């Protein structure tokens, strides 16, 4: 039994989000070193601002400017920062109620150690040198022993060249494990063997196997050796070159029912002009070099299969 395979998998997704009037004003304000909040109908000032009152669901647009100084309402020492967090050295996560606000903002506090941090301590914003209209325009907070800042003052929220969207890049790293059945299948392909699995209940042969029969809902643990020859059940002509794929278009991508299999797999057809491929054509896999899987399937030269022989696999 081969060892179960693993492979690194990186997922990156740069979401672009539109901001709406309140978040646009807040994030543009940060770029201009101005902190805006929003006032609810009952007079509370929410910082960071939201578009709808969390209690009444009223739409709220009444912007106010608050101070860049404030008070820590709670904190947590972070001894080992992760790569994309605000500071590269140990810091405290803090919720800070800015002077003039009634709610608190999450950010980092730069401090020499946990001993230097306490609930109620006074802090001020340290601005990032380069600001673009994002929460990270606040580099972090730092201790502040000056006077309390001003009360909330009305603000029209207008700035030249406001930011209206936010691009949030994310990159997550995974280790992908295909599982027992697919590890066995991929390991077989690398040895130029095609290994399927048979359902113990309905006796269908699945290739590639995924470990379970979707009809019976049981594990497909019986080995089966379909193919290697098979029949093209259906196909398409690909006219668009895929990014990073070194195959000239047009080419044919086909569903192939291997002999003895009850499910068609899909693969590229080579060794024949694209416009000569047909349903029922008999094909076999072609491994090239030290490839771990078939590069493509090519015609065997046998007579075409009778339609009735593969109709149920279409």
């Amino acid at each position, binding site marked *: 039994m081969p060892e179960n395979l693993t492979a690194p998998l990186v997922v990156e997704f740069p979401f672009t989000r539109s901001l709406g009037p309140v978040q646009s004003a807040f994030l543009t304000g940060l770029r201009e070193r101005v902190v805006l909040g929003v006032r609810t109908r009952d007079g509370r000032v929410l910082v960071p601002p939201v578009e709808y009152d969390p209690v009444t669901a009223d739409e709220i647009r009444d912007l106010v400017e608050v101070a860049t100084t404030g008070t820590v309402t709670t904190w*947590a020492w972070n001894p080992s920062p992760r790569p994309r967090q605000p500071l590269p050295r140990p810091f405290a996560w803090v919720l800070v109620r800015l002077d003039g606000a009634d709610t608190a903002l999450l950010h980092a506090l730069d401090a020499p150690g946990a001993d230097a941090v306490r609930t109620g301590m006074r802090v001020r914003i340290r601005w990032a040198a380069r600001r673009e209209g994002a929460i990270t325009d606040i580099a972090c907070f730092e201790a502040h022993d000056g006077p309390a800042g001003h009360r909330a003052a009305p603000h029209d929220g207008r700035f030249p060249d406001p930011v209206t969207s936010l691009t949030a890049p994310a990159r997550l790293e995974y280790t992908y*494990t295909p599982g027992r059945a697919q590890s066995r299948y991929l390991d077989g392909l690398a040895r130029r063997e095609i290994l399927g699995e048979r359902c113990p209940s309905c006796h269908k042969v699945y290739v590639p196997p995924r470990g379970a029969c979707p009809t019976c809902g049981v594990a497909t643990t019986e080995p089966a050796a379909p193919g290697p020859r098979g029949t093209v059940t259906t196909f398409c002509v690909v006219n668009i070159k895929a990014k990073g794929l070194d195959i000239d278009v047009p080419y044919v991508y086909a569903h192939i029912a291997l002999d003895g299999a009850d499910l068609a797999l899909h693969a590229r057809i080579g060794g024949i002009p694209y416009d000569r491929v047909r349903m029922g054509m008999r094909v076999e896999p072609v491994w090239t070099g030290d490839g771990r899987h078939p590069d493509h399937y090519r015609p065997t030269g046998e007579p075409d299969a009778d339609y009735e022989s593969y109709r149920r696999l279409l």
Partner: protein
Amino acid sequence: MTPPRDVAVVAYARTDHQGPAEGLSEAEALLPVLHDALAQAGLAPGEADFTCSGSSDYLAGRPFSFTLTLDAVGAWPPIAESHVEMDGAWALYEAWVKILTGRADTALVYAHGKPSAGDPRDVLTRTLDPYYVAPLWPEPASLAALQARALADAGHTGEPPGPTPGPPAVTDGAAAVVLAAGDAARRMCARPAWIRGADHRVEPHALGLRDLTDSPSTRLAAERAGAFRAPVDTAELHAPFAAQEAVLRRALRLDDTVTVNPSGDAAADPLMVTGLIRLGEAAARIHRGASDRALAHATSGPCLQHNLVAVLEGDA
């Protein structure tokens, strides 16, 4: 509100998860759990009227990852099926509602999580407010530590919190329950765990808008689930971090007469499965006759943001 139909948890199974699944796919890890639960209820794969699952593509690192687990369910020819991108407790809630409406008499509910595929410290930051919070990448343990400090400052927990706790152990696993209505439930299970009420409520998503020392959403969900109508003897609480249990105990008015988490510590359970396990363990305790009225709780999001409460009872 009294539910219009009697619906019960009649079967429950879970993986014996200790650490990362040993190279199994999610469907492979799930199969024995599904078979265990279905066998307890006397159902064949694909026989339940409705199937609902809970899991997260972000944990798996691939889109529509839940569709692959349908191979393990016997989903062809097509079955009536649904999925929540959440803990399986919410899948159970959906299945419960489905049965209450009369559209199904039986349901298979399952959840699976393979957080070992990625690093939950990074992955879970992607569930946060994308404008103001996610760009800072705060990991769940740090957010929970902010809550622990707030609790200590307010005098709700005995001592000031120690250093920020490390990340919870990464465990992979799966769980499944079978729900059934009325006589079907009585046929399938000697002592069904009747769901007398269930509800879920969410806090505002901005952490700074919340009182982190309280959980009004848990309290409201419990009220709506009928939890305060009579005392419970058992409570299975989903507190991913230790200090959060104090918040839940207060919101749920649990005193020393209530046996809390007899099944063990929820923090050791797999992500996306933990809440369903709480429900399943509370039900199993009723099945065994060890409880007559139990409360089960599930949570989702940072600092107990979203909370589900269900009340289960056994017949006298």
